[in-house]
């Protein structure tokens, strides 16, 4: 019988193409479920899930919580602000305490890269990484690829360009892994200061000119400029990756004017939250080119599939 090759979802890097396809096929069924008059199924009624968010999140947290509730799981929520973390408790202690309350699955977002892997080696519950620093954000990449698959069917040899702050983006890394496993050709585009030096090692090409990048691609994935991850280096010195937001918007902002210059239609995606007028202009975000809201809807279905497949093991 089919099952995932792993009992945690730590990153796309650890998944096989078969895993990704199994998640997509299962998500197809959950997408049908969340469009029913009654959107709830009882599959996880004996499962308890802890959502641990050590970093701010609106969409991912809501989406996970909704997915869990639609599967009838019991859900406990935790956010770092206002908790014992601010009193100096370590990650393992915090999580062990929560696990002592008999939790089966942990969904965690953490500012430190590798936090999910670290946790998976130290505790017995299944871990789902909901974003660890600048490392990976696997469910976002899965829902992005799922949304593309919904639009195009087979993704082999499709062309995707990821535009913006590649250096600080876990969405970019997870998407590069995920899309390449599905046979997609990936380019990244952005100012040289925001492109990691060794990005070629992942097998992607770099394009510094946005107009050429969108002329090449079928799908443009616009990333948010992560103002919270800029500003200072490790010694506290002021660091700026580009001269001004206005200059960034001029060079790398996607506008309807740019799209009209193309002799083809491309699809616009954005993982959210959008800085309107910076990486994407408002008219593009709301145009028929954009599948941004489909991404959000598919997020719930994909997360339901991941939770379902990871929780479906034998009771221990």
């Amino acid at each position, binding site marked *: *019988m*089919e*099952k995932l090759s792993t009992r945690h979802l730590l990153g796309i890097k650890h998944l096989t193409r078969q895993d990704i396809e*199994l998640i997509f*096929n*299962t998500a*197809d*069924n959950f997408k*049908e*479920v969340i469009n*029913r*008059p*009654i*959107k*709830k*199924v*009882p*599959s*996880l009624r*004996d*499962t308890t899930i802890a959502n641990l968010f050590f970093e701010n999140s609106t969409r991912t947290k809501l989406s996970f919580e909704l997915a869990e509730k639609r*599967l009838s799981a019991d859900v406990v929520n935790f956010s770092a602000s206002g908790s014992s973390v601010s009193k100096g408790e370590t990650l393992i202690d915090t999580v062990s305490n929560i696990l002592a309350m008999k939790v089966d699955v942990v969904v965690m977002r953490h500012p430190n890269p590798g936090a999910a892997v670290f946790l998976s080696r130290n505790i017995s519950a299944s871990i789902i990484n909901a974003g660890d620093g600048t490392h990976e954000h696997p469910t976002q990449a899965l829902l992005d690829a799922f949304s593309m698959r919904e639009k195009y069917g087979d993704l082999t040899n499709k062309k995707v360009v990821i535009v913006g702050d590649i250096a600080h983006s876990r969405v970019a890394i997870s998407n590069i892994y995920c899309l390449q496993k599905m046979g997609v050709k990936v380019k990244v585009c952005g100012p040289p200061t925001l492109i990691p030096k060794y990005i070629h090692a992942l097998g992607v090409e770099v394009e510094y000119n946005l107009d050429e990048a969108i002329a090449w691609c079928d799908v443009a994935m616009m990333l948010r400029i992560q103002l919270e991850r800029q500003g200072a280096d490790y010694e506290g010195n002021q660091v700026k990756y580009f001269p001004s937001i206005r200059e960034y918007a001029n060079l790398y902002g996607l506008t309807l004017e740019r799209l009209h210059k193309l002799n083809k239609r491309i699809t616009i995606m954005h993982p959210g939250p959008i800085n309107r007028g910076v990486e994407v202009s408002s008219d593009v975000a709301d145009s028929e080119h954009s599948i941004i809201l489909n991404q959000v809807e598919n997020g719930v279905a994909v997360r339901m599939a991941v939770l*379902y*497949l990871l*929780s*479906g*093991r*034998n*009771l221990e």
Partner: protein
Amino acid sequence: MVNERLIIDSNKLQLTIKRLCYQLIENHHDFSDSVILGLQPRGIYMADRIHKELEQILNKKVLLGRLDVTFFRDDFRRRESPLIPNATQIDFTIENKKVILIDDVLYTGRTIRSGLDAMLAYGRPQNVELMVLVDRRYSRHLPVEANYIGTQVDSIAEERVKVEWKETDGKDQIILYTPE
């Protein structure tokens, strides 16, 4: 070694389907308030067959859906790997309708129990009936019985009943497999 025994051949299966259709018509008349739901994975073939036959006899459209019960089963997390779901396809509401659930084999009754739960996401039916092609008697885990039965088989737990369809298996027949 496994012994195979043919329970019903292609001709008799066709007759059985016809007979079941006329039994349905006795109770549901012109099907204006009635809908058919085939249970995934294997009940859908029988539902397709019944549906086709009914439309021919009545010369009108009859509502047909496919219901997957995977998310409502009671053995989730009690197996080695997760249960892989199939598609549910119901493009109508069953609110106040007479529902006929169709499956190929009735054995423990657990699938039907899940089906009754799964169905409720599409509305509150006026009543529900069950049609099966094969009723494996004396093996129920739950108090579930069918209203319309193609044939009855007395079998032990180690035996397996398989309904094969021309569309998927190349031949219409019902076979009983007995391990030696």
